[in-house]
């Protein structure tokens, strides 16, 4: 969840690019609503039934602290017609795309015109 801090800090930059951040985890509604309160400028999704994670195929044995499967950190840029423009999956689950790098990718793939 640490990556959400920097994304929240940069929310004006994302707004300026007409892009919203939707952050998805397998957390239940209670935990997700707590996360939403911490990051009011992001949209938090509660995918506890794993429907979105399965649709995007980002589930796997990625060593959740409780030993269960969880989502692999993955970023997908989608344009306003619902078309995928770019997908990022780091080599290691300890690595994340920084907010600044994500802004650069938004400029590159979503705001080309």
């Amino acid at each position: 969840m640490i990556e959400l801090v920097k994304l929240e800090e940069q929310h004006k930059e994302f707004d300026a690019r007409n892009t919203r951040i939707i952050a998805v985890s397998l957390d239940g509604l209670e935990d997700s609503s707590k996360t939403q309160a911490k990051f009011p400028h992001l949209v938090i999704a509660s995918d506890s039934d794993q429907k979105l994670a399965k649709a995007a195929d980002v589930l796997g044995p990625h060593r959740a602290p409780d030993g269960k499967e969880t989502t692999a950190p993955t970023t997908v840029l989608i344009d306003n017609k619902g078309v995928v423009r770019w997908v990022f999956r780091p080599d290691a689950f300890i690595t994340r795309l920084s907010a600044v790098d994500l802004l650069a990718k938004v400029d590159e793939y979503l705001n080309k015109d």
Partner: protein
Amino acid sequence: MHEISRTKSTGRGYMWFGILVTILGVVTYAMLLMGAQLLHTPWYAPILAIIGVGLTFIAVRRKPGVWRYTALLFCCLLVVAELMFLFSFTKLPKYAGPAVAGQQFPEFTTKLADNMAFSNNDFVGQKSTALIFYRGHW
């Protein structure tokens, strides 16, 4: 004629510097994670630890002793642990879809934190979306 007495260093400095360099990688990673909240791959940690092994090895060669062998063993174990962490434990499989550039995002229906329905149809509208899968509240 003056007699010049030359005493060879026992290498204690190598041992302490070796331990320090070995630990430096872990400390740097922890500081960047907690201070700058930067999630990154600490490729520098095993490099520093290998340098630490070299330095403690020199210390052992200069003057073998239990503490120096212990320091060398500690540095070696840290190198192995860091290499395993980076190249095995944290490795993620490559992503091969079904979210593919140039194609519609796959169909789904799930919920937002406020219990409202959220589906792939919600991607169509005024704004573009950066969809980020994160590992939850922990």
